[in-house]
């Protein structure tokens, strides 16, 4: 007769949900510290500083990886489906503002000089992907593992996404970034990975150069 061995759990082993909650809290603290670092190191250029933006992206990626997050090893078709969903999300994010701009003729958002297109695009892409790795990757997983469910994970990541942009864009940016954060979280839920929200996020950010 084969008897299964009892698992040897240490007496001081913390509950997985408590560990996940602690991890989520640390990730949010790290996110706040990373944004402080970005603003302080950007100097007078603030959110327009590309080196500070790249540093911010690197710190977010490091935090995500240190927390144990790794990309889901999916098949190429599933990745392509995620990217397709993300492109759909980016199109959705751009469609109404673009239609409004064409219809009403609102003034253009100031953009960097044309000579900076390549570096601006790279910095923007890095920040968008790194934010998704941390928010819809590591933080999303940590909140979900607390047992709070996917809706709570979407909400926490969306609130964090909206709040970290307040120092750069003011409180008036909260409703838009909160709504977009919910959409990106829903893309994460529907696709099962960060490819979709990262594609939507980076696509909408990069579209700013061309259509705003």
């Amino acid at each position: 007769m084969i008897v299964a061995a009892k698992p040897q759990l240490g007496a001081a082993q913390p509950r997985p949900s408590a560990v996940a909650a602690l991890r989520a809290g640390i990730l949010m603290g790290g996110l706040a510290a990373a944004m402080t670092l970005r603003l302080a190191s950007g100097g007078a250029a603030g959110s327009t500083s590309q080196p500070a933006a790249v540093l911010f992206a690197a710190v977010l990626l490091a935090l995500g990886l240190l927390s144990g997050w790794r990309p889901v090893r999916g098949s190429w078709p599933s990745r392509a489906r995620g990217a397709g969903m993300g492109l759909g999300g980016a199109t959705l994010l751009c469609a109404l503002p673009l239609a409004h701009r064409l219809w009403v003729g609102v003034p253009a958002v100031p953009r960097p000089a044309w000579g900076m297109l390549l570096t601006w695009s790279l910095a923007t892409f890095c920040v968008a992907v790194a934010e998704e790795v941390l928010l819809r990757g590591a933080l999303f997983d940590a909140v979900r593992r607390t047992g709070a469910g996917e809706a709570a994970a979407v909400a926490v990541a969306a609130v964090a996404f909206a709040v970290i942009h307040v120092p750069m864009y003011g409180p008036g940016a909260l409703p838009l970034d909160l709504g977009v954060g919910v959409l990106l979280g829903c893309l994460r839920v529907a696709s099962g990975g960060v490819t979709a929200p990262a594609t939507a996020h980076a696509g909408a950010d990069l579209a700013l150069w061309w259509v705003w």
Partner: protein
Amino acid sequence: MGVVRRAARHRRAVLAAGAAAALAGWLATGTNAPPLYDSVGVAPPFRYVCAPAGINLSLHPAPNPATQTLPVTNGQSPGVGFTTDEVPIPQAQVLVQAGELVLPPGATAITVSLTPVVPPQILPSDGVLDGNVYDIPVTAGNVALPLAPGALATVVLRGPPTGKLATLEQFDGRTWTPLNSTPVGTADIFGANVTSFTTFALVLPGSPQTHAAAGCLPGTTLVAPGVSSSGSATSTASAGAGGESSNTALILIGVAVVALLVAGGLLLLLRSSGRPPPRSGGGRGRPSRRR
């Protein structure tokens, strides 16, 4: 088959909810908004009173004047934290702590205004105006309120996107005085402490301009000389501004780096505590890393 259909329906419902949330956010923010406030250096267009060369004023919304009336409580002036209502970045802001204004007897309320105005005839002698000139009176009835001795208020102004370090200057009806200015978070926003409420503007270093911009919005008030309340402008030279702000930035960077190191260390500790213990007997090698 039913499970697959249910999953697809669930996915569609989730995506529809997300799209509705994004649409609601865009409508709540104002339909001039971009797809999202993110990226590297996205800011709404600056709203000018007087357009510099190359700017078509008809395509830009006018800057918003703002007025707020606050009740006096227990004979003390209320705290003021007041901005103009441009979204998402207000172009002007004034901050005063409670009890720091000298009230006339019988005052029941104070009024704070932030009014973008056409620049006065007298222009700064040490540079060029960067963006709008703001008239910022604080009054009770029609009486201008001075700050209590030793008290400071803070004025914050946004300038157009130049990426350069501007200085906040104060105009008392005769001269412009540079203030000890600090960048405030986002590019092109600067704040300074003041000891009186008059007229303020950002100034970029350079050759002094001889005349204001060519085109100005109709109906904007001209600054009358002598609008100042009693008290003098903070006359701290702006030379010290760079040193102080860089010290603050260094402190913030240090604090952020320490916080990040602590966060990284804690995350590593949590990872190792979350791993299953090594097998006791017969087990070889490292514990499984599967998650």
